[in-house]
């Protein structure tokens, strides 16, 4: 008889543990293993055609993310900067022209060929994510720092070379933020939260 009582108890405990363990998944899934560059990265290392140093541009130089990713404020996609934008600066920066990565850049420019960057934050095709809305809300309306705003989803890119996915980007993760009461702006204490309607994000 004891065996059965124990078994029942064990089963009940297992169930409870499962429910408790499930909780972390609600807010974004398990964190991946520690990587060499010190990130709790969720995505794999993506080898890009040019190992673009975000840390130099956004970190050391402190360039606004939207200087290059200029479409983020006016389109659903933030876009890769156009090649002539890279050239606009690098034509004038003599000091780094000999560096191999810059040479690669010049090679693409001369061929008039777009750099075949690979997508790092590639949402499923049925998702209608809109950069513009998020930038408008938090950067322009709320006036938060751009690195923070972009970082909500992209992590601290300014400390990476090529970008790496560090956030879950899963539906539960999105909703966990949409459910929060976000203050309208630094001075306005009114709060609002993200849309909860399926069709806002699903197409």
């Amino acid at each position: 008889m004891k065996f059965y009582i124990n078994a029942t108890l064990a089963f009940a405990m297992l169930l409870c543990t499962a429910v408790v363990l499930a909780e972390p998944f609600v807010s974004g899934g398990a964190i991946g293993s520690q990587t060499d560059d010190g990130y709790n990265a969720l995505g794999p290392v993506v080898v890009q055609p040019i190992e673009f140093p975000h840390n130099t541009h956004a970190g050391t130089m402190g360039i606004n993310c939207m200087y290059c990713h200029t479409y983020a404020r006016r389109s659903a996609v933030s876009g890769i900067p156009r090649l002539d934008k890279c050239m606009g600066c690098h034509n004038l920066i003599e000091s780094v022209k000999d560096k191999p990565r810059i040479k690669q850049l010049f090679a693409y420019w001369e061929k008039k060929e777009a750099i075949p960057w690979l997508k790092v934050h590639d949402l499923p095709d049925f998702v209608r994510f809109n950069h513009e809305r998020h930038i408008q809300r938090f950067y322009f309306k709320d006036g938060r720092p751009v690195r923070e705003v972009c970082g909500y989803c992209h992590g601290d890119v300014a400390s990476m070379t090529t970008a790496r996915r560090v956030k879950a980007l899963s539906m539960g993760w999105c909703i966990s933020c949409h459910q929060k009461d976000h203050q309208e702006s630094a001075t306005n204490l009114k709060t609002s939260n993200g849309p909860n309607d399926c069709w806002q994000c699903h197409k």
Partner: protein
Amino acid sequence: MIDRRDDSDIEIERRFVPKAKDINEDIAWAQINKDVLRSMERPRPMYWVIFAASLALFGFGVFCEVYQYQTGLGVADLNNPQVWGLYIATFIFWIGMSHSGTLLSAILHIMHADWRKPIYRFAEAMTTFSLMTAGLFVLVHLGRVWQFYYVVAYPNERWTWPNFNSPLVWDATAIGTYLTSSIVFLYFGMIPDLAICRDTATGFRRKFYWFLSLGWQGTDRQWANFRVAYLTIACFLIPLAVSVHSIVATDFAVSQQPGWHITSFPPYFVAGALYSGCAAIITLFIILRYVFRFEEYMTMPILDKTCRLTFAIAMVWTYLNLIEYASVWYGNDVYAKETLIYRATGLYAPYWWAMNFLGSVVPFMLAFKSMRNNLTIMMVVSLLLNMGMWLERFMIISPTFAHGYYPWTWTSGWWPSWVQWGIVLGSFGWFSMLFMLFCKIFPTVSMYEVKEMVYHRSEARKARNL
């Protein structure tokens, strides 16, 4: 220990049992054990033949399902508006089938109808297996069966819930609960018998029964607890069974289609369910009685009672059926009336008339004692009744789709593809396969309850004679 005698020995042992004779009150309890356990012995070749046939049928159903799964539901020749086809019709049929077990074991248990005792076990098994079959149809008919768990209400990282307004969610919940409960009920009622099996079995079987019999020793305390628990589950199961088919009925009654949007649907469905279940019990009764030589336990008076019960239910069903027609006919809903007329005169008219004939006229065979005493006729009648009940479900679904509100999508000739038929037939294979396995693993007649019955009867006789 189960002794292994040749088939020829069994033949010799066949005792003559007069047709009208009820269960022998003098029968030795050891004899009961022996007779019942004998049915669990090594199967005869015919068993394997039938089992293989069932397996093949089931295999074909699986093949059809795999094909449909990979290619898409288009292979079933479903279309707009014929979106459901045979799958839902057969689903309701199997759900209906499941109601008889509960009726016999729970309702009649509470009503102290002791004649149920030799036959309730297999009826309950039938309940469980037909529910398992019905559950398959829910999955088979889904467009994206791999996402079926979206129907289940569970906390998840997407923060989403099923739509609690939808009868399909009620369905999923009710059927899940009903299946669980009936498995528990079936198992619970078997524990004393499993202990008997444990005591006679050897080897692996002994271990198996040891595990399942939960340490049953037959002490007074165990019996007392057992009875309370059994009654509790029975009480729980009755409203559940009624609600399950009511909920299946709400799948239709809650929706807005002509011919479906009828308040009498829940009782109508419950009656239909009990009806087809009872008919199936007659079928299995005759088969088991013949195959396992249970003439002494599954006696003709029991069959007689079952048939009378079936007849009563058939009349209730007929009444509710007529109510349905009448409420549509005299109602204000012109569309529903049009659909009713379409059923009687349109493309599906032969099936509709056949359904009415089989469901309401054929059961009158059960009204005659001479018929009830003839096993062959009863076998045929019970099968016909079930065919009628299947047609009833088919008649609820297809004509409404073929002739609904919207004339543009009225279909002129819709017929299910071989894939649909394959899966429907496969479900019968699956059911009989499960049932055949059950017969060889578990006692199909409740030994302890037969003993009780015999005991109570002889006690009662004694009391009368005193």
